[in-house]
């Protein structure tokens, strides 16, 4: 017990020291289970479009980020109560979320894709028609769209929610749901990996992704994030990041490209990093 208390004490001291020594490091929470926006590479690095945008904004604005892997449901609570400073997790800006956190300017516009089994003869209308079971990740705008645009409007579909997106796709393959509604880039990655799946259509929801901070922005982060985002979008790095992550390259290839480009990140070379990443991801 004495040892345990000692460990507790040490942990507390280390924790406090970390907080006071690196005042310009902000904690960024991300549900790293959602390629190509955020995931864990084979070597353990947390990478993805959102996370690299975050890293590059941090370089441009002169602060450091510590990216922490978080379970999706908990991110809004912990950003909301200030345990972490920033959320970067492919989050669509919605009025409900605005009530608990403050969003940055939008950095990405997403639409919802509908995946079905390629041999099912379903089209976008029949896949979302009465009697169908539709899978979506819990708490996502895909699930919200099914609820608000179908169920609430009297279309008799059953919404089946999953804690993780790949489990919804697995259930589709196993025949437990008829379709899965999910953001387009993740859907494209799934379909590219399995010939039995196909995207039957895209729902133009035009959702805007934003980074988010604790309500009231106590650290004054939003002006920095928005300013950095503007600078990033004005540079060549923005198009390079989109090419690298949204170009449909296999994840392992993006991971290798990221590792090769990482020295640029260490050297705080924003455009150099993005250029190397895009070149690696698109190399033949």
């Amino acid at each position: 017990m004495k040892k345990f208390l000692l460990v507790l004490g040490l942990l507390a001291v280390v924790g406090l020291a970390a907080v006071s020594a690196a005042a310009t490091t902000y904690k960024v929470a991300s549900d790293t289970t959602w390629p190509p926006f955020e995931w864990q590479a084979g070597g353990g690095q947390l990478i993805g479009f959102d996370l690299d945008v975050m890293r590059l904004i941090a370089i441009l604005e002169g602060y450091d980020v510590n990216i922490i892997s978080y379970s999706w449901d908990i991110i809004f609570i912990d950003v909301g109560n200030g345990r972490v400073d920033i959320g970067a997790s492919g989050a669509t800006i919605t009025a409900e979320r605005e009530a608990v956190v403050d969003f940055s300017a939008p950095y990405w516009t997403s639409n919802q894709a509908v995946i079905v089994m390629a041999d099912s003869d379903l089209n976008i209308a029949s896949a979302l028609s009465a009697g169908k079971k539709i899978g979506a990740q819990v708490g996502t705008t895909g699930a919200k769209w099914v609820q608000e645009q179908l169920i609430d409007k009297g279309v008799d579909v059953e919404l089946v929610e999953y804690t993780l997106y790949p489990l919804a796709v697995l259930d589709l393959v196993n025949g437990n749901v008829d379709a899965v509604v999910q953001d387009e880039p993740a859907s494209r990655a799934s379909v590219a990996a399995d010939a039995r799946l196909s995207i039957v259509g895209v729902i133009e929801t035009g959702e805007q992704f934003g980074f988010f901070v604790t309500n009231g922005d106590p650290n004054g982060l939003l002006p920095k994030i928005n300013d950095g985002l503007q600078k990033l979008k004005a540079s060549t790095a923005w198009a390079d990041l989109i090419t690298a992550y949204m170009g449909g390259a296999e994840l392992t290839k993006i991971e290798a490209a990221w590792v090769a480009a990482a020295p640029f990140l260490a050297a705080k070379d924003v455009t150099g990093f993005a250029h190397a990443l895009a070149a690696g991801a698109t190399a033949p």
Partner: protein
Amino acid sequence: MTATEILWQNVRPLFDALPVTLEVLGLLLVVGLTLGTVLAFAQAYGRRPLRALCVGYEQLFRGIPPLVVILLFWNGITPALGVPVPGIVVAALALGMRSAAYQSQIFRGAIQAVPPGQMMAARSLGMSRIQAIRSVIVPQAFRLAIPPWANEYSSVVKDTAFICVIGGLIDLTRQALMKLAPLSMRRPIGTQLILPYLIILGLFYLALTYGGNGLLSLLERRLSIPGFEMKGKVER
């Protein structure tokens, strides 16, 4: 790359995450053992108000699911403290305090399973109550407590999977969940490796459960006195 190679590539991070699960498991057992022992003695030998307090504690923690206890500790109690508490400590405290409720029942049962005549005999030899508890009751109760304690161990090993909801804590389960998406996006394999991968995750927990139980039954055999095994029979 073959499917086996891809699978292995994704199993390796599980070994990296194993120490986190083991650390939480070890810490929670220490918390549970310490607090559980105190609660057990308080219930077996304490006065009525103290006993009632212990019963209340047990009812509370045995009545709430482990995931809910973790969410309460992580999202409710520790943010209110205002000081940063590491996730691993929150996990160990939440699950340890819950386990203490169960462990105290095991120890109290074991203490009370030692026939009351033994206490009388020890006192008649001139031992004090404390001496009798220490030298006569506890050594016997300890042996009796091992099999049900092994049961509790198996149970908390699996409870540790719930800590995956704590931010920044990458235990076995969280690590496996993080690998599902990249694993299911490997071309042209798709979702096919998810099932074998989850089976491997299960094997990790199976190894922890049976490994620990093996050690505990070894301890039980080492401590048993041939001819004087107590099978939990209570003489009245």
